[in-house]
């Protein structure tokens, strides 16, 4: 049975003041240190943003009672804590557009929904175009967005100069900026807070969050899932959802699945913090790179993959140099800032560059993975939709195209048009 526990008090100004007056010595845990039970109705493998969001929406919207999130380390320790925190929904293909716009709409209410400030900041995302062909490309994208009711504005070079004064809009560079596409509702969020906020809210609804609980096997009988073997013992369940960005292939393999995924490194870095200088997110078409400034003042940068498979989570110098070269070409005044920290996320790259969310040949086992670079911004949407799938057993309209079966049918969702080369997407 679902064990009752006292819900932690809501965060409020009064609550904060009360704790301040008592020396901040009486705070309670944001989420319980739960012990695994013998069985659950639903087990989510993976305590990242997606897994925690799934558990939250399952409990909140579908009335599911016995839910556990099993996490091999600490929650939010995978790609949730290793990304460049950008949220947007500027996708060309209708399938992607529906998915990411669903997510963006959830982001807009998330702090309120969770009673946890995830610092979602709609400072706008700008996709730069460096020549007329790219400008036509972003126009096509922007028109597609506008027809779907998603905000998009085309910025001329002059408008960009005004909107982002620190950006070099001159011609004195190899790839001059000729214009850009602004999504005003895009922005950034505090990545760790998303995991913590969902964890706290899910916990309050009775979800057991089991940290340091590594799944080592998936049990099946007669084509049905029966539970998971973990480092903390066997845990039974009728339904199991996989949401383990960076390790989707490994966990799916425990159920005998082989997926169209190859895992690559994506590097990112931050500079030392400085006073505000860049108040929007810049994405450069010239090198698939993105630059923004965190609330702490660090300039955060990321770019394309390392172009060879790796699970190392370690940065590599040539890519870092390239990110710096391109960033300084866009922002020449950043030359004297210092690179302070580099890291790498491990990205499950699918063969068509779009995620896989759906049923599997094992009854009761569901997969949510292959998010390529797109995982963070999808967090609430992915959880919301995956919860729906887990509850109903059937994909809804938005999820239907993302089923694994699309590869058998040749219905690839190839946003970049680069074909079955996972690292080129």
């Amino acid at each position, binding site marked *: 049975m679902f064990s009752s526990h006292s819900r932690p008090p809501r965060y409020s100004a009064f609550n904060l003041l009360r704790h301040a007056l008592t020396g901040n010595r009486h705070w309670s845990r944001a989420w319980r240190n739960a012990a695994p039970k013998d069985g659950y109705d639903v087990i989510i493998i993976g305590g990242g943003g997606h897994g925690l969001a799934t558990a939250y929406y399952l409990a909140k919207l579908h009335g599911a009672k016995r839910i556990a999130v099993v996490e091999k380390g600490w929650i939010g320790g995978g790609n949730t804590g290793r990304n460049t925190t950008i949220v947007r929904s500027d996708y060309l293909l209708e399938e992607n557009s529906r998915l990411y716009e669903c997510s963006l709409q959830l982001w807009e209410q998330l702090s309120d929904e969770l009673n946890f400030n995830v610092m979602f900041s709609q400072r706008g995302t700008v996709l730069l175009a460096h020549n007329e062909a790219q400008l036509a490309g972003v126009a096509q994208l922007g028109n597609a967005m506008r027809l779907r009711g998603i905000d998009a504005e085309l910025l001329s070079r002059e408008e960009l100069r005004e909107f982002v004064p620190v950006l070099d809009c001159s011609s004195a560079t190899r790839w001059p900026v000729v214009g850009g596409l602004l999504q005003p509702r895009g922005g950034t969020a505090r990545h760790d807070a998303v995991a913590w906020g969902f964890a706290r809210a899910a916990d309050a609804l009775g979800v057991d969050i089991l940290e340091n609980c590594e799944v080592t096997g998936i049990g099946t009988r007669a084509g049905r899932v029966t539970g998971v073997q973990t480092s903390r013992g066997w845990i039974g369940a009728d339904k199991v959802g996989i949401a383990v960005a960076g390790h989707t292939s490994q966990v799916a393999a425990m159920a005998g699945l082989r997926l169209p995924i190859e*895992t690559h490194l994506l590097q990112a870095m931050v500079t030392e913090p400085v006073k505000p200088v860049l108040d929007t997110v810049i994405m450069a078409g010239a090198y698939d790179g993105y630059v923004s400034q965190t609330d702490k003042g660090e300039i955060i940068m990321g770019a394309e993959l390392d172009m060879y498979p790796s699970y190392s989570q370690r940065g590599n110098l*040539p890519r870092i140099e390239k990110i710096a070269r391109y960033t300084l070409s866009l922002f020449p005044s950043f030359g004297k800032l210092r690179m302070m920290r580099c890291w790498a996320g491990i990205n499950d790259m699918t063969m068509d560059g779009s995620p896989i969310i759906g049923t599997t040949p094992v009854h009761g086992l569901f997969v949510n993975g292959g998010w390529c670079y797109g995982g963070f911004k999808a967090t609430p949407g992915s959880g919301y939709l995956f919860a729906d799938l887990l509850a109903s057993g059937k994909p809804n309209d938005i999820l239907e195209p993302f089923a694994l079966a699309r590869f058998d049918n040749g219905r690839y969702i190839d946003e970049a048009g680069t074909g079955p080369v996972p*690292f080129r997407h």
Partner: protein
Amino acid sequence: MHLIECPWCGPRAQVEFTYHCDSEGLPRDWESEHETELHERMLNRTNAIGFHVELWNHAGGCGSWLLIDRHNRTHDIRSVAYACNGRSGGK
């Protein structure tokens, strides 16, 4: 940045090489393979953590196609060999 021992050029920096695909993605016999075989190798991967034989090209060097037995977490390299029975490419 890896150091890759090219059988022709000797040890060279990884920036000179381009990764092409896991050896699982290579045809056993391209001429005679079937549609399902092609799609299986084109799309699906074991993608396990550990050593994998991968096809690389020494694109910034002698152009050879190489099979590199490499660990995808530690980046240790166990062996580097020409991809086709000692026959090597070259641009």
